[in-house]
């Protein structure tokens, strides 16, 4: 058989936890294969075995018919496997060109051949249509550009198999197009690609075939032509009814009373420009826009992370001047940040310590913290949000992305709030977990809490919002009531069609 990669009956356990149970996976030369599954299905673990990060508990891996056992990441790389990791593998303090050649420098003896590398860099740029200054320190690039450097690095490695683990999460549409072209070019030159994404449209655009995983097992291999979005979600969740509602069907918005939040021409330098809108009691306001349209920056002004340079903020009709997140919480504002791993959670901590971080004063007995009360509260959140955990003292990092995000949401349960801001709460989490997150939005609004919901997934925005505000380049483009509008309508506003 002409398989470049074959994995047979792969098992992987971490202690008592069985993550992979008998996976068979194979990849042909020139094939672009989607790897699909909910969070926690075992995709990442499977990829990490191919990448040499983990070794399988049992089972065999063959490269071009030869049995291999990867010693480490380097070994896998030397054998022709290149991975675009979800967490960037770039060194922030090095320049772009230094990063591109990291681990495969051209050398004469111990010395670097900088001229040769520069020439090769120019060739790579030409071949793949990149346009990034090679001498910029990587940490000074935007996240989207850093992602492009990551992609550029992986494709220039000249590997036989390129694995892309959610490569588009921080890319803008233009760059996505660029990436899709690159995938076509790789395919043409006989390279094989494994493509992981939660954005199903991308699968139909780029992939020939798909392997679908569920709970550590392979559901099956399919020709993409035979699949539809509904079929995929059905196979991923194992439900015939995917349970995803297309549209918001009830509202708790109270337009009669004073709005809980009113922004009047708020600005910050040239980043946020004269933004005005209102959020009413129980209303869900969706902020739609592209990555980089400065929606998070607007949220940061409301939550007191950044300083306003102009405008006023009213809460319940009274002017407030919030200068820090502490003051924001005191003013009954909640915030679920975009970057849950760095801002929302402390991954090395136990679940219950994370869950109680915001309302810590409520869990004291005679002035001292009481873990029993903390665990009780955590248990309440776990039940309410359907968080899958073994026990509340488990480390946060052991949970899947979706369950981590639910813990972030659970921090705010029972807190006295007038407003809560969700910033990209569904990034990188699976469909079932998404639905649970939407449910919390509904719950909060039912209690009369105003919700600001930021998402780059327009289907989601339509699914949860009463009102949709389109943001472009730090300004409000328009406000739309969520009545009889489609994704296309929002898209047209975003792209100024």
């Amino acid at each position, binding site marked *: 058989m002409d398989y470049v990669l074959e994995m047979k009956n792969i098992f992987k356990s971490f202690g008592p936890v069985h993550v992979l149970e008998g996976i068979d996976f194979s990849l042909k030369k020139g094939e672009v294969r989607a790897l699909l599954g909910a969070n926690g299905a075992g995709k990442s673990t499977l990829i990490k075995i191919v990448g040499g990060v983990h070794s399988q508990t049992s089972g065999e891996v063959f490269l071009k018919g030869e049995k291999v056992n990867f010693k*480490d*990441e*380097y070994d896998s*790389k*030397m054998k022709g496997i290149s*991975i675009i*990791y979800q967490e*960037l*593998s*770039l*060194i*922030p*303090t*090095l320049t772009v060109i*230094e990063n591109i050649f*990291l*681990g495969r*420098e051209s*050398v004469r003896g*111990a*010395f*670097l051949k900088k001229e040769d590398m520069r020439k090769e860099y120019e060739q790579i740029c030409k071949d793949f249509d990149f346009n990034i200054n090679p001498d910029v*320190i990587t*940490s*000074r690039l935007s996240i989207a550009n850093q992602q492009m450097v990551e992609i550029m690095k992986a494709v220039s490695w000249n590997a036989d198999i390129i694995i892309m683990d959610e490569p588009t999460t921080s890319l803008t549409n233009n760059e996505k197009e660029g990436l899709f072209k690159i995938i076509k070019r790789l395919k043409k030159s006989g390279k094989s690609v494994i493509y992981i994404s939660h954005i199903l449209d991308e699968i139909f655009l780029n992939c020939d075939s798909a392997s679908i995983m569920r709970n550590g097992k392979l559901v099956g291999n399919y020709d993409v032509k035979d699949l539809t979005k509904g079929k995929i979600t059905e196979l991923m969740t194992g439900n015939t009814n995917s349970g995803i509602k297309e549209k918001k069907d009830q509202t708790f918005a109270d337009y009669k009373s004073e709005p809980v939040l009113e922004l009047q021409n708020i600005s910050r330098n040239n980043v946020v420009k004269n933004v005005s809108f209102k959020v009413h009691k129980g209303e869900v306001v969706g902020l739609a826009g592209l990555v980089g349209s400065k929606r998070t920056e607007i949220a940061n002004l409301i939550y007191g992370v*950044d300083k306003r340079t102009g405008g006023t903020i009213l809460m319940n009709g009274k002017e407030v001047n919030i200068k820090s997140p502490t003051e924001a919480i005191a003013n009954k504002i909640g915030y679920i940040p975009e970057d849950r791993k760095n801002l929302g959670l402390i991954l090395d901590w136990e679940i219950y310590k994370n869950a109680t971080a915001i309302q810590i004063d409520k869990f004291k007995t005679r002035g001292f913290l009481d873990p029993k009360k903390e665990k009780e509260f955590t248990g309440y959140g776990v039940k309410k949000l359907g968080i899958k955990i073994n026990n509340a003292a488990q480390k946060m990092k052991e949970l899947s992305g979706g369950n981590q995000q639910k813990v972030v949401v659970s921090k705010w349960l029972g807190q006295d709030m007038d407003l809560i801001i969700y910033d990209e709460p569904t990034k990188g989490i699976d469909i079932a977990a998404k639905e649970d997150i939407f449910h919390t939005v509904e719950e909060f609004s039912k209690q009369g809490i105003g919700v600001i919901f930021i998402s780059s997934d327009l289907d989601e925005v339509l699914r949860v919002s009463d009102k949709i505000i389109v943001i472009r380049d730090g300004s409000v483009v328009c406000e739309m009531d969520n009545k009889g509008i489609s994704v296309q309508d929002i898209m047209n506003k975003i792209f100024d069609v």
Partner: protein
Amino acid sequence: MKNSMKKLQQINFREYGVVIGFIILCLVITIATPNFASYKNILNLLRQSSIIGIISAGMTFVIISGNFDISVGVVAALSGAITMKFATSGVNIIISMVIALLVCAVVGFANGFIVAKINIPSLITTMAMVSIVKGSMLMLTGGYPITENIKLLDYIGNGYILGIPFPVILFAVMVIIAYIVLTKTRFGRYVYSVGGNREASKLNGIHVDSYIIKVFIINAVLAGVAGIVLIGRMGTASPVAGDGYDMDAIASVVIGGTSVAGGSGSVLKTVIGVLMMSVINNSFNLLGVDMYFQYIFKGLIILVAVGIDSYSKKKLASR
């Protein structure tokens, strides 16, 4: 065009701020104390700088790799003590020096190994090593200084080549080698990479542990070289000789502008840092400033230097 000019200015200020500060400092001191700019004083100043300078060159590697080594002071003293001990008991002086440097390399290896493999933070590892090395050295010497006039050592400490003190030349050679290794070799590139992000470096197939170990070895051997220069200069190996050198070396590196966060920096910056520290010490002496105040000032200047770096990073992060 205008934009790019502006960018250029910003970069230059960040990059060369220390150099500009250094030049201004020298000008001010030249005006305040006419003795400062004399040929004799400048040579003297360079010679004083060279011992800390050689240690700082090694420390630059360690700090770029994202670590610290506070054992360099005792390692320098150990190197001097071993050299003297062997030389005075009849071993050839060159062989004595080689033995001393080998022992330093072993200490460096131990530091690096513990930091890399056992994952104890370098500050703690080397702090413990200070105690271990100091104890061993006191056992070796019985706590007494060893004094002996050895020709070669005297030349290393006090000799001249073409009118330039030998230690200064040694310092210059070490800096040039360090510069070439850091900027022109794969080894140097990986030191930056490891300091920039240890985990990501692993993903790039870099054997992170081995680079951390090597960096600590380089640092300890350079500290050993400095220790030999020191006994040459003093004519005696004292067990308390290296006291405070670790702090001076770390201070020189960070004042030069190498980030304590790791992943960036340059040995040339370190040279500026070393000179800056010496000029400040020297001018305080010329101006007759209280010795005790000099300690306070040294502490403050470290906080300022690291503060500028850390604060600008914080600003950048919240951009």
